[in-house]
């Protein structure tokens, strides 16, 4: 659905979770299968009300394994598809997420993070699933993972998530957390500057010529809808350009390299970051998600004390935005990486630049990292 300019923009007070629904619908999502779980349940609840009125389909599945299977199937049939969950459900989704990756099915999985492991802290925020989002399913695979920090983000980045899924034929994981998901902020919808919508490229050849997994310059094969007359064999086994199982080293190596290459080709648009007061920064915070809000505040507080502080927000966590992170590490005499986990993305920052003076700050007790905590740490760098 492209929003037309005649639509009168209106202000709404929405939760982050509600904004994800609005973003998904604006991106053209018309299929949702899921199993409600705190703190993501509002997404399923609102989808169940809105999708039927738009000609879409909502299904409450028996569990998260089935939810993931259903959205893979719906996307193969041509519908932009979404599911939403939190830690325990995300764990169950990993197997079929691998299947979606192997079969290059565009879809979006929202994980509104809560404290884990297991059922953990159902109502408390956390950022401890960032490595699971990258490596939760087994085997080498390429994946896109995005993280949101506000209601405005939750709308816009959800649209980007669908766009990237469609453009690169890949599952995209959207990470929110209990704080962002349940914070209400004012948002104008439709936005003054609508986010462009992208759809998957369909085959332009006659059905008998179609090869569903054939390489091209972008590394992204055109995708025919199941049932549209194009032969489209789908398997979780390693497969050749026709989609049939083939375990030869040439096919296997070529397939995996293409998975990584297609995202590398699009790195410039995939690796999204936001910068705040970094131009003359001597110390910097690098973080993502809800902690970004505290980081901006802490940087402002430090600036008031004459400390040249800056902030790099990672919107895209995977593929890890190496260039942007390295630039900050080179420029600043010290870099602080606060996370609401025991230290996950900080490993990646360290791997990018081993010469940087790196400080990590972690909170993993279900509480929020406040600006005051960050400010004190910044002042001591």
């Amino acid at each position: 659905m492209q929003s037309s300019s005649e639509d009168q923009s209106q202000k709404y007070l929405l939760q982050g979770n509600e904004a994800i629904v609005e973003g998904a619908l604006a991106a053209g999502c018309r299929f949702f299968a899921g199993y409600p779980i705190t703190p993501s349940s509002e997404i399923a609840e609102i989808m169940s009300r809105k999708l039927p009125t738009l000609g879409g389909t909502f299904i409450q599945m028996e569990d998260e394994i089935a939810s993931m299977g259903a959205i893979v199937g719906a996307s193969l049939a041509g519908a932009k598809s979404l599911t939403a969950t939190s830690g325990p459900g995300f764990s169950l989704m990993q197997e079929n997420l691998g299947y979606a990756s192997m079969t290059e099915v565009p879809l979006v999985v929202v994980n509104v993070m809560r404290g884990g492991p297991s059922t953990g802290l159902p109502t408390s925020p956390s950022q401890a699933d960032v490595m699971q989002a990258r490596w939760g399913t087994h085997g080498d695979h390429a994946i896109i993972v995005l993280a949101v920090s506000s209601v405005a983000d939750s709308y816009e980045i959800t649209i980007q998530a669908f766009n990237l899924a469609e453009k690169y034929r890949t599952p995209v994981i959207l990470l929110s957390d209990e704080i962002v998901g349940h914070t209400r902020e004012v948002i104008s919808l439709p936005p003054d500057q609508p986010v462009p919508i992208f759809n998957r490229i369909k085959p332009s050849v006659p059905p008998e010529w179609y090869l569903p997994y054939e390489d091209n310059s972008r590394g992204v094969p055109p995708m025919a809808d199941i049932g549209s007359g194009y032969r489209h064999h789908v398997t979780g086994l390693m497969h050749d350009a026709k989609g049939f199982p083939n375990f030869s080293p040439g096919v296997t190596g070529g397939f995996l390299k293409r998975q990584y290459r297609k995202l590398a080709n699009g790195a410039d648009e995939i690796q999204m970051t936001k910068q705040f007061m970094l131009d003359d920064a001597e110390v910097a915070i690098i973080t993502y998600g809800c902690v970004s809000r505290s980081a901006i505040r802490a940087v402002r507080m430090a600036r008031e004390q004459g400390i040249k502080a800056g902030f790099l927000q990672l919107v895209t966590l995977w593929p890890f935005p190496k260039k942007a992170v390295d630039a900050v590490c080179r420029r600043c005499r010290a870099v602080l990486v606060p996370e609401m986990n025991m230290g996950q993305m900080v490993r990646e920052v360290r791997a990018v630049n081993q010469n940087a003076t790196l400080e990590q700050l972690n909170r993993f007790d279900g509480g929020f990292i406040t600006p005051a905590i960050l400010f004190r740490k910044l002042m001591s760098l």
Partner: protein
Amino acid sequence: MLKRKSKSEYVMKKERYEMRFCGSGGQGVITAAVIFAEAAGVFGDYYVCQTQSYGPQSRGGSSKAEVIISTKEIDYPKVVKMDCFLAMNQTALDAFFSNFETDGLLIVDSTFVEQVPTSGAISLPFTEIARELGKEIVANIVALGAIGYLSGKVSMENLEKAVIARVPEKFRELNIEALHAGIELAKNVNVDNLSHSPSLDDIYGHTD
């Protein structure tokens, strides 16, 4: 002793205004916070951020909601220093009073709050008024009227629009009546005549 700004002067000067609404589950403090946020941010021109306690305690036990109102984009979404605090009962008042700004507004429901932690508190009988209107459940809207008027952050017109937009049509009249009862209560309060709660400085000279 330092000369303090009057409370109304203080409110006007604030770029970022931080509010907390609390009571027991079922007293409607979250609804009041959401309506306030909509009056300020949807019908008014402020940036707003509204959060709430989310957990088992929100189904029974104390309930807490926060609203941040700002003329600039809001970074940190939660309360750092409370400028305005509405407490609908004693337990919630005692539990959530921390981070109160000395010059802030403390408004309590005198129906359920017997003791206040600062001499500058404003005690108004929200629940009693609601009972008189026929439904105790609208005590939150009576309080909303008072807090809306006293905070000076929303126009009464926008507050009314926000109530109408949130409340089912069947109960609209009752809620509007409750809102106006709250506004009338607040009109009798002169915030500039309230005694300031003393700071440690005021009592001990210096605290360094």
